[in-house]
């Protein structure tokens, strides 16, 4: 069953086309990798799916409804964004960061309610990072931060997770654990959509790969089949 779809999306910036005629539909529980060279349009697709950008042409559909008319908080309760594990200026505790996922429900409440706290603890427990709860987010390693941001997405209650190059800055073991976790979540019915720069790991881990080249979809299919040596070479202009 399709949960999130792009329908003939076109997007340009300063008159330069970034995406042209991009269409795909993602079903519940699918685990989709977006691959392509830098500048191919991967991040633009993520930002359109999160409504951080508005398409110039075409529509983004969530359960068949256009994202354009959807309320901010409703969207937040359905689709969660997991950015790269970044630095934050102020020394928030991990529990505070995770509890922010509940914000869409309790926008003007100045206190973190017992329900928020329980949801945050449940999300951290689910990812087995409960021991980090009282640490300062700023003091964590990249891998730990990535885990915290995924926990926040779970606390948000969204069933669709959108991740931006989640492996960036992680060592081999951290990357492996992260991809295992993503697969595990997909197994639980979460829909996972991630950009990645690692075609070999994507071929092994993801159920589906969408390959972008110069703003158009080059290939779209089961990750193991689509990501052949030949397509990877074409994708990254690495023929020679």
């Amino acid at each position, binding site marked *: 069953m399709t949960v999130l779809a792009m329908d003939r999306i076109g997007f340009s910036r300063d008159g330069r086309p970034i995406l042209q005629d991009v269409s795909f539909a993602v079903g519940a529980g699918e685990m989709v990798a977006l691959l392509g060279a830098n500048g191919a349009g991967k991040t633009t697709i993520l930002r359109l799916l999160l409504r*951080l950008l508005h398409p110039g042409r075409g529509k983004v559909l969530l359960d068949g409804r256009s994202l354009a008319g959807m309320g*901010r908080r409703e969207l937040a309760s359905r*689709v969660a964004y997991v950015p790269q594990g970044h*630095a*934050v200026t102020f*020394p928030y505790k991990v529990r505070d960061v995770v509890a*922010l996922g509940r*914000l869409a429900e309790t926008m003007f409440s100045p206190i973190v309610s017992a329900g928020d706290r329980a949801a945050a603890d449940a999300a951290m427990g689910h990812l087995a990072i409960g021991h980090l709860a009282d640490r300062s987010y700023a003091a964590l390693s990249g891998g730990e931060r990535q885990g915290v941001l995924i926990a926040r997405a779970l606390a948000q209650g969204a069933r669709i997770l959108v991740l931006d190059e989640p492996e960036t800055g992680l060592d081999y073991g951290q990357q492996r654990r992260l991809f295992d976790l993503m697969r595990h979540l997909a197994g639980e019915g979460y829909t996972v959509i991630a950009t990645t720069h690692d075609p070999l790991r994507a071929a092994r881990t993801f159920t589906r790969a969408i390959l972008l080249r110069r703003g158009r979809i080059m290939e779209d299919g089961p990750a193991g089949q689509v990501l052949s040596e030949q397509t990877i070479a074409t994708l990254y202009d690495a023929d020679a």
Partner: protein
Amino acid sequence: MSLRLWYGRLVLVLPAILLAGLAIMSLGIGRYPVGFGDIVSVLLHNGAGMTVERRALLQTILVQTRLPRIVGAIIVGAALSVSGAGYQAVFRNPLVSPGLLGVLAGAGFGAALGIVGDAGATGVHVLSFLGGGLAVAAGVGVARLFDKASILMLVFGGLVSSALFTALLSLLKYVADPERQLPDIVFWLLGSLTQVDMPDLMAISAPVLGGIVLLSLCGRMLDALAMGDDEARTMGVPVGVLRYGVIIVATVLSALTVSVAGMIGWIGLMVPHVARLLAGPRNARVLPLSACLGGAFLLLCDDLARSVSAEEIPVGLIADVLGVAVFVSVLRLVRRGWAA
């Protein structure tokens, strides 16, 4: 768990109690010292048991002279501190002060305009408030000329606006009557609570309290904003409305203080750091705690201003010097949490 919960409550309640105690103590301080018993007697029992002359004297000193000043110090200190904490949150930068977008320069210019134009006390207050708002509007306007007002462009707009209004202020100083008006401008710029009276307090206390409550209610959304604009948006936060809303409220808060008390700058930068040190970075706590600590700090400074020497020292000077001392001494602790 229970210990942390208790600390979480005490850290908000204790400063409020301290502030109230400091306020009562401050009533006794001045050229005519008044004992605690007399203060309680006059405030609570209308001076029962005193001679008529003494009761009248104490009522004049305590209620008409000192009380407005004490309330004024608390309100001005609280407003500047909350304003600074709000600015720091929306700009994701702990080194930002309420003056960032030009409100202080603009308010200074407005006040000088009032003094040079012989607008009277009320006129100076109003022009100063309007000048502060105008300067921030100009700064934001410049930022929006270039793009959708990113943080960097807002800082740039504030720099440009501050420079412009500082230059205009200099121009007014140059043309001001050096015998009569120039000393007024200079003294006003030093910052002082001597001119604060009951009508001033009536005019500013409601908007200041309202602003403090409003910003505190936005605390969790400001926490989300600390993660970055995009993340906050995907968590359902109306980022543009929140940023401009906080800028407007924080600007009104600081412009109001400048209009009655002149330039008292440092507090807005320094107090939120102390609040974060005590209560952690969550804005729903940092904002009300900043109000409390800022009020207490400026009250303490004003007590010093009117008691250290026979000739009163402008409280702005004391607040700056003490503020720097406090800031430097807490910086080592505060910096621990800053990223890299």
